[in-house]
């Protein structure tokens, strides 16, 4: 729960999913005040939406490394040689 105040939109998938799992366990534990419970529930729903949005991201970013400095360019799949197996 250390990232409790982090903006949901800025969380990576793993961090968001882990926080969501933590909140659900917390809510199910039944030790939370009602006021706080509503607040946690809203955050859980936001995390769930965020995770779902990340999963629905239109396309995976695919780059190709072009030099030893770490420069990349979009990877053009498709032109594959049959002989390169």
């Amino acid at each position, binding site marked *: 729960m250390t990232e409790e105040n982090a903006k949901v939109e800025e969380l*990576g*998938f*793993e961090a968001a*999913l882990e926080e*969501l*799992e933590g*909140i*659900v366990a917390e*809510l*199910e534990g*039944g030790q939370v005040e*009602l*006021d706080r*419970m*509503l607040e946690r*529930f*809203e955050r*859980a*729903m936001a995390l*769930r939406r965020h*995770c*779902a949005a*990340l*999963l*629905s*991201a*239109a*396309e*995976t*970013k*695919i*780059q*190709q*490394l072009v030099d*030893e*400095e*770490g420069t*990349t360019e979009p*990877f053009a*799949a*498709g*032109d*594959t*040689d*049959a002989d*390169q*197996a």
Partner: protein
Amino acid sequence: MSEPGARPRMALTVSELTAYVKRLLDRDEVLSQVTVRGELSNFTRHRSGHLYFSLKDDASQLSCVCFRGDAARLGFEPEHGQQVIAHGNVSVYEARGQYQLIVRAMMPDGEGALAAQIARLRAKLEAEGLFEAARKRALPRFPRRIALVTSPTGAAVRDLVSVIARRFPPAELVVVPTVVQGEEAPASIVRSLHLAASVVGADLIIAGRGGGSLEDLWAFYDERVVRAVFAAPVPVISAVGHETDLCLCDEVADLRAPTPSAAGELAVPDVAELRARLDRLGERAAGALAQRLGLGRSRLEAMCARPLLCRPTTMLESPWQRLDEAGVRAVRAMDLAAERLASRLSAAALTLRAFDPRLTRRLSFVDRQRARVEGAASRSRIAIVRRLERGGARLDAVGWRVTAAVDRQLGRHRGKIDSAAASLRALDPARVVERGWALVFRDRDQRLVRSVDEVAPDDGIHVSVADGEIAARVTGTRSETQDDD
């Protein structure tokens, strides 16, 4: 020395001679790392797990032993008459004065010199601990950036990209162009592995290529490549397509996949499974909240049902009544007392007048007394009425404050419950059902059925649809979870 028996003190014991020969052989560089090809014969597997056999060719025989630990790692079942390539060191079995090959690794012959070379390298790297299971690293659960160390134009990269992009879109992929075949391949793979970890910043590396002959895949048996995989600072999946043997790169990698597509499957979780998991988490959160709100609501209702809260003025009714009664009684008592006093005074006055005219002047005193009594009575009466009025006003003020506080409190709780209820409505299964979906429950415990594993034939179930329930019985189940997606 040529004269037998002439110098008996020079004679060695058998043990001394044998030990001398053994030292000679053990020190020999060629004999300490030797690879031999031959036919297996006299093969025996001893109870202890050690293997005893001979290797022979047309003209010679060689005694061999393979100790239990090495025997367990052979990877094939040796048979009498089989052509094999064995690798190990030559030493002397002192008890019999027999030299023998201590076999560390062995493989069926037929793949030629390459196979022997691989066996030798495998034995060496294994001895260094490169293949130990204990040093293999866990893969990240949700990789953020995956480096694909492979040819940018091969089928392997196409398979990897399509499988990973389909299963887990949030992962970023960086293709590190690599030569995976031919003379330059080992150096290219080593360089790419280095770049993947250093400049690409990947948290997972997949290195591989499609299938091919042993010669095609040779780079993945190269010692430099194996060591580079071992030294990589992030986990490496080896994805070399091949049908039979494991290449050395597979054995050193943190995880091996039989093909590039399989590597994609192993590298990232499946989006459909994750969505289902998110749904379950959402349902659990809503369930926990609903349960808690139900509890809160029934407590609130119980509280509202108590007279104090449903009619807050009730508690003031009885004080009012008591106040009224007290007022009435006080006034009545005072009137009575005043009357009694007045009539006693009048009677006294009459009596006095009748007895003694001299006392007549005292009558005025009596009259004054009577007037004072009456005056006092009426003043007390006014004071009592005032006090009663003040008490009433205080009670009214208290009543008004109590009513307002109760209303505020009830309003706050209703607001909270309403907003939570609105959140819940968004997840309400009933709304899903209205759109034509159905929910299936087990009769036995009323639990929602999510998987074929949760019911068995003949189980009673009921199907909840928008306008009611359908009772049913399971006649059979069929799993469809083997899908890719």
